[in-house]
């Protein structure tokens, strides 16, 4: 059963930066792009589980800090010549608060 979970205020996340959301079973990286686009992705690189939350974000993707794979924040897929995929989650922003669908 999916539902919207309240995460945090928009300002808590730096533009082009991220925060880690610790859920019961999984860590999720929430990124904030230009124009306050919010992305949520499992905090585990499909390559060797690197923490994507610690990478550099650009456009709709993030570069993993461990070995520089580029991961799409929209689909969770590795971009370029690399292959692999991690989970992404739906988000919304209401009154300056971020919600995540679980």
């Amino acid at each position: 059963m999916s539902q919207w979970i309240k995460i945090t205020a928009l300002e808590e996340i730096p533009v082009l930066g991220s925060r880690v959301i610790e859920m019961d079973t999984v860590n999720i990286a929430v990124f904030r792009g230009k124009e306050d686009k919010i992305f949520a992705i499992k905090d585990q690189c499909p390559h060797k589980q690197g923490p994507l939350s610690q990478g550099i974000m650009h456009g709709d993707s993030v570069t993993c800090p461990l070995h520089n794979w580029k991961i799409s924040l929209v689909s969770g897929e590795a971009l370029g010549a690399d292959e692999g995929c991690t989970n992404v989650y739906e988000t919304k922003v209401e009154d300056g608060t971020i919600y995540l669908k679980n």
Partner: protein
Amino acid sequence: MSLSTKQNLVLVGNGMAGMRTIEELIKLEPTKYNIIVFGDEPYGNYNRIMLSPVLANEKTLEEVMLNDDNWYQKNNVNFEKGKKIAEIDRIHKKVIAEDGTEQSYDKLLIATGSKSFMLPLPGVDKEGVIGFRDVKDVDIMVESAKKYKKAVVIGGGLLGLEAANGLMKQGMNVTVVHINDFLMERQLDKAAATMLQKSLEEKGMKFLMSHASDEILGEQRVTGLSFQNGTIIETDLLVMAVGIKPNLELAKTSGIHCERGIVVNDALQTFDPSIYAIGECVQHRGNVYGLVAPLFEQAKVAANHLAELGYGRYEGTVTSTMLKVTGISLFSAGDFHGDEDTEELLFTDFASGTYKKLILRDNVIVGACLYGDTIDGSWYFQLMKDGTNISDFRDSILFGQAHLGDAGHGDETRIVAMADNAEICGCNGVCKSEIVNAITEKKLFTLDDVRAHTKASASCGSCTGLVESLLAHTIGGDYSQAPSKKSLCGCTELTHEEVRTGIRKLGLKDHDDVRKSLNWKTEDGCAVCRQATNYYLLCEIPGYNDPESRFINERAHGNIQKDGTYSVVPRMFGGMCTPNDLRAIADVADKFKVPEMKVTGGQRIDMFGIKKEDLPAVWKDLGEAGFVSGHAYGKAMRTCKTCIGDSWCRMGTQDSTSLGVKLEELTWGSWMPHKYKLAVSGCPRNCAEATIKDFGVVCVDSGYEIHVGGNGGIKVRVTDFLVKLDTEEEVLEYCAAFSQFYREDAHYLERTAPWIERVGLDKIKAAVLDDEVNRKALYDRFIISQKPAQIDPWKKHADGADANQFKSIKIVATA
């Protein structure tokens, strides 16, 4: 007809240059145009330069297809296969094919290439007389080889020799006729050409040198060739490989200005602004090119303008040559003949078949000609394009780059001789055959492509040279060569220098400013350019920082580990410590249950496995005990290694330890293009290894020797001696000045060793030694930039700065 309002882009000439432009354009603007391609050959675009290996039975036609029919479909490109354009109607903006097909255009791209130049000899139109240009020619040669025995190739140049080699492989008895007294005179000097001829003769090729052809004999089909000296040779097939002739008729008859080629400007635009031209058919700044490397550079620029980005500029290309005859290695570039003002470095060993010649003008390479051992061709070529002053390694340059020291590969230079399962890339465990397969199967052209697909040389980069030569040997030709202008990354066409100058000249203030003012292709840049730009900004504006544009290590002030924890290395100035220091570190380790500790190679202590959220608290305790960050994580000043010096050592000449501490106090905290290490040894026994550091001091009885540009890492490089000084004060001044010059001049991620090899020691001497005013100015700028840099980042964060970064948000499941 489609009703779309998109503009029509028509390409005439389905060859290597034209299609490369389309590919580049699709990368930039996938949907901007309706693209219609006319090609008079009945195939998709294939890799023309691979026709030689196809003829030599080393490759199949399928293997050398670049864009097959599927590709056109998948990319929504309308492909008019086998249709030759006969006319361009510029008034009504349409092209008309021989079969009557008409197509209107908004933008037209002419890429008609060239054709074989056929000597105007009597009998040239006989059956069995052909050029060597396309698949049709190869088909004729293969068919002839089945029926006939004897072949003659006119032309002892690159193409002629490749044709002759291929025909031999097809079983024919081949004679090469050449007008000159030595082969490949445009690419080789006589000595190298003689060695080449000898090895080809050993393979069974025959030569008639200094022979001028007169008439082609035979009835309907060729049966022989007569020469001006009255002699005759019999043959069943005659291949002319004496040169190429740009295909200009179409452009000329439609009134486009042509000289030797279609004349274009730096945007590859012809005199008609809606018509672009590219490839072998064009003439740019007086040059007509016949190799693919320049055409690929042109393609990038043309695509940039067709995408209406408008900032690309083609400024010409320096080219180099290789011969694709298996078992023969030769390489040449630039002016390899020289003149009165040039010097020649020469190495000849006829017995082993090795010949190396470099032409220098004022200690800068202007030409190279290599035979037998060509592994260093790309290195010399790069030095040549960079205009590097090579005086410091002139003595050993002919022995090659490996001779300069290479921790990874030593003298493993003969890539061809390496076994298929030989490991090329130690970091990523990639072996030779994996790379070769990726290149052939995925049709890779460039080093970047190979990196993306195989990861080879993508990490520490020490095997880059090996991968480049594998690329060159696998695809042949020279178009693996890095373009003469290397852009910072895919987000911009600009080089490191151009970005830097842009920031300085335009006084750019931040990242957005840089990307907007300098026309970046991407809104946010990427991980590569953001970090570089951040450094260039920081260098102009001391104290500048955009955390989101820094690698996590520099953002979190610790080294990220493979499990996502961090390491903590407190600074120990000059490696000195007290019992209290060690106790404080031990207390921290106990309190935070640090899983592992180690004495580093940099004379200090590393604590591993610390959780990100604990970092501020760890730092707080360390800070209270008097420690600051060791910047072991930064593109920054790392350590100053010292030996014990004259305070204890019986050999010591000066107080190396206290000088080391002073140097570290001066430089700690400074952000650099790359990591930056110092050392001070108390005597020439050099226990602190000062001669493999970025800045090293070797104390001697009469003063201090200053050494710069050393590296003990991936590629070991011994320092260059810079100067001998008398006092500690001078050492500090020179250190600050040298460091500042490096910060202001080197590319981001370029350590002092490759930097010095690129720009030459003379440039450093001129800035730091010879010009006292400049040295003092550099010193002053260094001190200014140190003010905001020596605020300990750990203390700042321990006091609460940017606390969010270290805290995750915990969500407890509801319902």
